[in-house]
């Protein structure tokens, strides 16, 4: 792609001496693109997002071959410069709007805060923009909301407030960490529609982190599947669902109960075991303890294979060899 908006190569994050939360992950996000990072607990997806914004706890260490935003290096950037990007050109929304909105401040003051700071705008201008954005994201009676507190709003409304807050400074990149997981399914559909519309309207790129493959299928242009700190498969959404390559991706897809397509007498596909904790210095494939096709060689170096252009995965085996092993 032409210069990606977000270009990350070989990102690694360790906590203390022992835990390797992310190990050599790479992501590229183009302008106007929705990129989903999908994975389960402990895969490193949320931590990767925090690393991009440099919001990790002090005991965490991040390293990468490249970590750049709109051509600017973020790794070596000092905090003052980073603070001008955060909330301004790059914004983030989180899973639990109740814990990420400050309960002690009004909606209005939280919405206007970053705009006033980054754009050095007067309060009146910030309020006008806040009201306009709240209307745009579907918040009814926006003038009244200005004076309300987070606890007076429902979960869906709070999440809309978070989205409005993130858009106040017209960011180029929106990082959304599980933005709809805590919401009812009908509200989820509304919020995702909204994000899609805003993407087109504002020319946004969206990095959406989720564990829900249904969400991924409906909104993603490109997908990175993470497991235990690594990107085990990367593809366009169409490629990933049509032709998943990595045993973990395929296992995950088989676990999802889909309404209307169920055979109630057959048990659901599941992946036995639990996600391992990876220590620094771990070698070989992290999935091998749960993989039905693994053998002794999976403890060694794992190559990156290419299925088709733009579709890569980390496994010694192709799906054809996996099938052979399954029937053997």
């Amino acid at each position, binding site marked *: 792609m032409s210069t990606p908006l977000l270009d990350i190569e070989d990102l690694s994050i360790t906590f203390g001496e022992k835990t390797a939360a992310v190990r050599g992950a790479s992501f590229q996000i183009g302008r106007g693109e929705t990129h989903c990072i999908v994975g*389960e*607990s402990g895969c490193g997806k949320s931590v990767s997002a925090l690393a991009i914004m440099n919001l990790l706890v002090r005991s965490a260490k991040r390293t990468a071959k490249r970590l750049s935003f709109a051509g600017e290096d973020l790794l070596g950037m000092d905090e003052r410069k980073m603070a001008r990007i955060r909330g301004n050109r790059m914004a983030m929304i989180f899973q639990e709007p109740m814990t990420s909105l400050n309960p002690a401040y009004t909606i209005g003051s939280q919405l206007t805060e970053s705009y006033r700071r980054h754009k050095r705008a007067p309060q009146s201008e910030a309020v006008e923009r806040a009201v306009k954005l709240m209307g745009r994201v*579907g918040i*009814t009676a926006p003038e009244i909301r200005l004076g309300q507190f987070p606890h007076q709003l*429902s*979960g*869906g*409304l709070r999440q809309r407030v978070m989205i409005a807050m993130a858009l106040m400074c017209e960011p180029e990149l929106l990082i959304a960490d599980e933005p709809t997981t805590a919401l*009812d*399914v*009908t*509200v*989820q*559909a*509304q919020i*995702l*529609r909204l994000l*899609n519309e805003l993407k087109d309207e504002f020319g946004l790129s969206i990095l959406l982190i989720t*564990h*829900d*493959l*249904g*969400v*991924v*299928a*409906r*909104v*993603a242009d490109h997908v990175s599947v993470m497991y235990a700190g690594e990107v085990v498969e990367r593809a366009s*959404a*169409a490629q*990933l*669902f*049509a032709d998943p390559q990595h045993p973990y991706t395929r*296992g*995950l*897809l088989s*676990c*999802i*109960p*889909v*309404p*209307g397509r*169920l055979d*109630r007498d057959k*048990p*659901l*596909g*599941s*992946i*036995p075991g*639990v*996600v391992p904790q990876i220590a620094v210095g771990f070698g070989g494939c992290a999935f091998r303890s749960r993989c039905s096709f693994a053998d002794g060689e999976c403890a060694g170096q794992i190559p990156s294979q290419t299925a088709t252009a733009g579709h890569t995965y980390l496994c010694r085996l192709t799906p054809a060899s996996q099938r052979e092993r399954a029937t053997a």
Partner: protein
Amino acid sequence: MAGGIFTQARHVIAVDGVSLSVPAGSVLGVVGESGCGKSTLARLILGLMAPTSGDTLVHGQSLASLDRKARARLIQPVFQDPFSSLNPRQTIQEIVSLPLVAQGTYKREEIVKLTADILDRVGISRVMATRLPSELSGGQRQRVAIARALVIKPKVVVCDEPTSALDVSVQAQILNLLSDLRRDFNLTYLFISHNLAVIEHIASTVAVMYLGRIVEMNETDALFRNPRHPYTRALLESVLTPDPSLGIPDVGLGDVIPDPSNIPPGCRFHPRCRIAVDRCRHEAPKPAGGDGRMVECHLATPDSPLQLVGGQYAQA
């Protein structure tokens, strides 16, 4: 049954006139969104809350007439959050034995054996049994919660979103376990979930709740094939199946938020209903049907097959 909770001076009727009949050995799935009253219903049935009116009968026995210990022998819960439902300061063994110890009628050797047996059955090893909950994963803790519910061999298990807090691959393991246990122990489940696909997989009958009432109930296959209430349809159309050729559905529910402390007049769903007419605004619909099949809507379609076309329901 009606259950209310008081918030300041306002009276919230969280569950309003709900009647259910669940045959032994079956699974009744209850679906609905925030504010529909499904969790309150669970608490009422478990006896954790006293109903304002109405009663729950298990095998013809009124729960209200039983003391806490007798009730515990009949009905047990499995809750959503595996992190807060287990005492962090007790070992797995102690947690799972507690229902037996609390009865006061079991001998020590019986307790030890029953606990070991059930832990084995849910896939928790002897070693793990001596650990604290903080040392187990979410899926393992949920297995412990299930073991604790079953150690006393109840008749009914009320599962309130038992897999919603778990990863997808673990969720499947737990659902398979619950299905197996139901068959082995001939249990009856009341299974609450907002996840329709999970419900379709495990339930034999489904009840759809909205703002405190059941608006539709039917056998699972029939409900998913032919949802008759507009809310059920919207709910099913909102489910995001992993199909990249489809976009995000616009189910047309509007922006009004269902508020149990402010129930609309007439049909309580009318402010969000795509097909509401004047009658719906003034007159509450009566439940129509019987025998485990009902729908409460002035405009419910007759029992004719619908098709799911491009993510939306239409007449076949």
